[in-house]
């Protein structure tokens, strides 16, 4: 679907060019690229879903999905990190407290970097089992615990964090807080080196008697969980769209390689076998695109997108790696060259298959509808 937001295509193009130029370097230095956020701010992408009255673009969810797809041509990890930060910026605008709006302003400028903190070292897929505790005192909430596999953990300082206020209540006890990493009680932990995913800046951090003032309670117990569950349909949808983007890129590389080879007079890649194999990839891309578009459309309309998002995520988890390897195979040994970034796409597809509910979890979710 074309972008609905005015000039978002131009912004996306500019940022894509920047990512393409730097992505190999980011992988090689094996560090999350903080400067990438600065560039995203210059282009104006960190306020993607922030309302225009607050200086953002006020983009629809469909546009967010489209942005994920387009920039994933260059690097899924980069746009995944970017969207993670902008999610916090737009969420903070719903807060009645001026300090949160101040933080959101800084997120737009990349003076702050945002992230959502949900998973923990020993609670991967079972969200309700998180152990990070929030205890209410007269000075505010005291938080303790560790978070793991957190996107942007390398630099994020404005964190939408989920914690348990009452373990006996299960998911009803979970609340969300704004955590300011510049305050005492926050300690950054290990930052993972992920193949094809250094730009994600994934890693861990710890809260040690971190004191959150009362107004930093973002969603009270009960509501936080529902908010997270709603937003996960969105995440599944844009992750699937990112897979579309990577497959499109692989297909473009393979087809342009084929044409180039033809130009040099060798007929190697004019063979029908390659053409058919790539046609199948094109067909799968079309089918997955249709699913992600549909899910995005439902979410934009405020309709139930649980099934459509789960289906898109499952299909993405199953077809992306075979589709990319088919394109690599069509390029022969050239497909193995580092500069094409196809190895990183493969690795990112693997990350996509795990994040926001694994392919196996999607099967369970869809199975429940059978």
């Amino acid at each position, binding site marked *: 679907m074309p972008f609905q937001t005015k000039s978002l295509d131009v912004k996306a193009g500019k940022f894509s060019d920047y990512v393409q130029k730097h992505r190999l370097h980011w992988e090689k230095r094996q560090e999350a690229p903080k400067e990438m956020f600065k560039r995203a701010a210059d282009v104006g992408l960190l306020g993607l879903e922030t309302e225009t009255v607050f200086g953002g673009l006020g983009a629809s969810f469909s546009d967010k999905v489209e942005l994920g797809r387009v920039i994933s041509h260059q690097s899924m990890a980069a746009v995944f990190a970017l969207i993670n930060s902008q999610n916090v910026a737009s969420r903070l605008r719903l807060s009645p407290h001026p300090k949160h709006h101040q933080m959101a302003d800084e997120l737009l400028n990349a003076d702050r970097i945002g992230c959502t903190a949900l998973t923990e070292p020993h609670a991967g897929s079972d969200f309700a089992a998180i152990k990070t505790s929030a205890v209410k005192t007269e000075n505010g909430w005291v938080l303790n615990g560790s978070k793991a596999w957190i996107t942007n953990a390398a630099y994020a300082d404005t964190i939408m964090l989920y914690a348990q206020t009452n373990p006996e209540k299960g998911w009803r006890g979970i609340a969300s807080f704004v955590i300011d990493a510049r305050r005492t009680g926050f300690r950054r932990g290990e930052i993972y080196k992920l193949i094809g995913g250094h730009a994600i800046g994934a890693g861990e951090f710890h809260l040690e008697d971190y004191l959150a003032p009362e107004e930093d309670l973002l969603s009270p117990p009960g509501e936080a969980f529902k908010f997270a569950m709603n937003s996960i349909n969105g995440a599944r949808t844009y992750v699937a769209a990112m897979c579309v983007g990577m497959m499109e890129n692989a*297909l473009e590389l393979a*087809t342009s390689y*084929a*044409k180039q080879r033809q130009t040099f007079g060798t007929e190697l890649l*004019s063979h*029908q076998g*390659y*053409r*058919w194999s*790539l*046609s*199948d990839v*094109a*067909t799968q891309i*079309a*089918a*997955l*695109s*249709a*699913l992600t*578009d*549909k899910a995005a459309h*439902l979410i934009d309309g405020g*309709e*139930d997108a649980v*099934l*459509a998002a789960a*289906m898109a995520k*499952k*299909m993405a988890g*199953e077809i992306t790696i075979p589709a990319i390897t088919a394109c690599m195979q069509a390029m022969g040994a050239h497909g193995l060259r580092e500069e094409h970034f196809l190895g990183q796409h493969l690795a990112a597809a693997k990350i996509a298959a795990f994040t926001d509910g694994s392919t196996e979890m999607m*099967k369970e979710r*869809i*199975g429940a*509808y*059978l």
Partner: protein
Amino acid sequence: MELALKPEDEAFRQEVRDFIAEHLTEDLRTNAAIQASVRTDPETAGTWARRLGEKGWLAYNWPKEMGGPGWNVLQRYIFESECAAVGAPLINSMGYRMIGPLIAKFGTEEQKNFYLPRITRHDDSWCQGYSEPGAGSDLASLQTRAVSDGDDYIINGTKIWTTGAHYANRCFCLVRTSTEGKKQEGITFVLIDMDTPGIEVQPILMLSGDHELNQVFFDNVRIPKSNRIGEENQGWTVAKYLLEFERGGVSYTPGLKASLSSIREIANIERSDTGERLIDEADFKQALAKLEVEVMAAEFTEKKQMTDLARGKNPGAKSSITKLLGSEVGQRVAELKMKAVAHYALPFMPESRVPGNNVEFPGPQYALTTTAAYLNGRASTIYAGSSEVQRTILAKQVLEL
């Protein structure tokens, strides 16, 4: 697995349901249920077609100016879905889907006035004379000759794989009027009445034992030139428009969704080898979920394309994607249904699928047509441009390889 509809669409769906409930009588439904072909027997299908025709819903894909109901894309899809869900007879759509739109585009006023109303009422049964023994996927190689003789053409040659030729009364045909220039350039599009002297129809039996295909022989068949659609030697252009229409205009997914829902019902009843309900068996459940996703993806792809069609855009080469998805996913659905009915897939009693028979099928009703439908479905990746042709089109026109 249905997504929400707006109130006005709900109302439309109810209207369709009411009509079907009233006019799709029990005998029609039973006769349709026991058949496994891409069409129901002509008598059953014809009756249902004429009932729809009276209501003005047979040519349901036509705009008002052509004599159709002028439905939008969603309404058509609802109509198809409702028909598929209750297992309405599969009508020979050569008239309203194929030759009708083409006459409307290329025909003379006289041709339009004569044929279009007949099509909306199912006065005729049409068949398509394209493929020949030496010209299948490579259609332009066709050799059936039409020689000019005053105001007539004299036709000699043969057409093959002609669905329904044994009961059709009219045929639209591609014939060669010139052997000069490129092979695409000497082809002409004509209409032939099947009772014209010199026509012989020979059956070709399908894998399932069903009779649906034929070879048609033309021996000095004389037709008036007024039966020509478009100019002489312009038949390829005419046909190409139709081929894209055929690829783009057919919705595969309403039928696929009905099949999946039937598989779910079966899997709730049948047991696996280990005694658990089939729907609870991990392998089966996994295969079913995979197909649910594929069908849903195909459905949205189809809907996207129908939206384009509704806006008057020619889907072009992209219609190859819907054809590939619809037909190949369809074969996988048919295969899973074979798996679901297990041993009941094996009995071979084609008589039990003939309306009015008294042969009892030794298994549940839902298994009656499963194998025959699977076997007949092998043809879906071959007709209307084989999967291989679709891939070649995609590679050439979409990937520009």
